[in-house]
């Protein structure tokens, strides 16, 4: 906790948590929805991780070695494992590979996994370094930003609508929303049933992006908050506690609790990236095949 900057200003528990939950924004939000606010730290880390993922996979593809010319290196094997894994999922659901959806699924899986992986970095490390460089707040996990997760899920939602219209036509898309699940051959009864169908299918359609975004956000937000709470309750004595026995007890408790939660969190971050990818593939498959 920032005792080194102002010895008279040790933050209280709520202040510590509130400070860590605030983004490095260009201005204060003037309400729940304010489109002029930019979270510089989310933008920076998401772009940085995108460059990291894109550049390393590109280098692996460029330097890839096929049979006869040499033995594939470890990184190429690793990249091939991930690409094959994603391709298997796409084949399972689509029945064939897809030139656009498979790379989209790969990007979503790796990018969301890298976002989530930033949560494994000790919670005070990068913000303290940033405070040394003059930045007041820093949140390093982009998927704890509702804006980032909604950006990804709204993009997927736009793709769902585009694929639906492209493959089923506008008439097919509208008829799927208005003529299912209640169907009747009598045209007057059908016209009466259209509002009920629209409500049911509309909820189904809009629940897709909202649940995609909020599932990832909720999981990562809760995980980060628990790391903060573990740090808060066990290390509240600060560096001065290292001279006392209770201080060392706190360090030991922090190690144990932090380790347990971090190990569970490894499962959570991988699972959430996998589920985001799988649901994207499933929604796009539903959009591009005529069911019913």
């Amino acid at each position: 906790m920032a005792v080194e900057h102002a010895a008279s200003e040790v933050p209280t528990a709520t202040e510590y948590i509130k400070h860590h939950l605030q983004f490095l924004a260009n201005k204060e939000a003037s309400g729940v929805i304010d489109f002029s606010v930019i979270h510089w730290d989310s933008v920076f880390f998401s772009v940085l991780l995108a460059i990291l993922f894109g550049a390393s996979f590109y280098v692996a593809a460029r330097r890839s070695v096929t049979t006869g010319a040499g033995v594939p290196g470890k990184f190429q094997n690793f990249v091939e494992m991930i690409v094959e894994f994603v391709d298997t999922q796409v084949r399972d659901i689509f029945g064939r590979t897809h030139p656009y959806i498979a790379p989209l699924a790969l990007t979503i899986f790796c990018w969301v996994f890298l976002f989530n992986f930033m949560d494994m970095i000790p919670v005070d490390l990068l913000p303290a370094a940033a405070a040394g460089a003059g930045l007041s707040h820093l949140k390093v996990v982009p998927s704890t930003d509702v804006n980032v997760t909604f950006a990804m899920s709204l993009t997927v939602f736009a793709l769902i609508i585009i694929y639906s219209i492209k493959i089923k036509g506008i008439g097919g898309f509208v008829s799927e929303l208005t003529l299912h699940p209640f169907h009747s051959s009598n045209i007057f009864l059908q016209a009466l049933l259209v509002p009920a169908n629209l409500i049911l299918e509309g909820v189904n359609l809009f629940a897709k992006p909202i649940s995609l975004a909020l599932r990832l956000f909720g999981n990562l937000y809760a995980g980060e908050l628990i790391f903060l709470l573990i740090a808060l309750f066990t290390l509240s004595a600060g560096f001065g506690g290292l001279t006392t026995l209770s201080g060392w007890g706190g360090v030991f408790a922090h190690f144990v609790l932090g380790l347990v939660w971090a190990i569970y969190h490894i499962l959570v971050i991988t699972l959430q990236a996998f589920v985001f990818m799988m649901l994207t593939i499933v929604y796009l498959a539903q959009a591009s095949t005529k069911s019913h």
Partner: protein
Amino acid sequence: MENLAQVQGMTALAVGIIFGMGALGTAIGFGILGGRFLEGVARQPELAPLLLGRMFIVAALVDAVAFIGIGFALFFTFANPFTAGLTG
């Protein structure tokens, strides 16, 4: 002052209910999910990896609304919009 205390008390109660109901639903859901998975693997052990993958997918879907609730509950705890309406 008393209004603030009442709003804060109600918010704390609401946060507790959100967490509790979410935990209740998730626990029952995962129990049923895990039980069906074990039955499926007992019937056809060769399908175990496939069923495990599908189980994790459904587990994330079961979890989703509970985590959405946790997100809102934590938002109410640390940036309570109801008190902002009172004092601001």
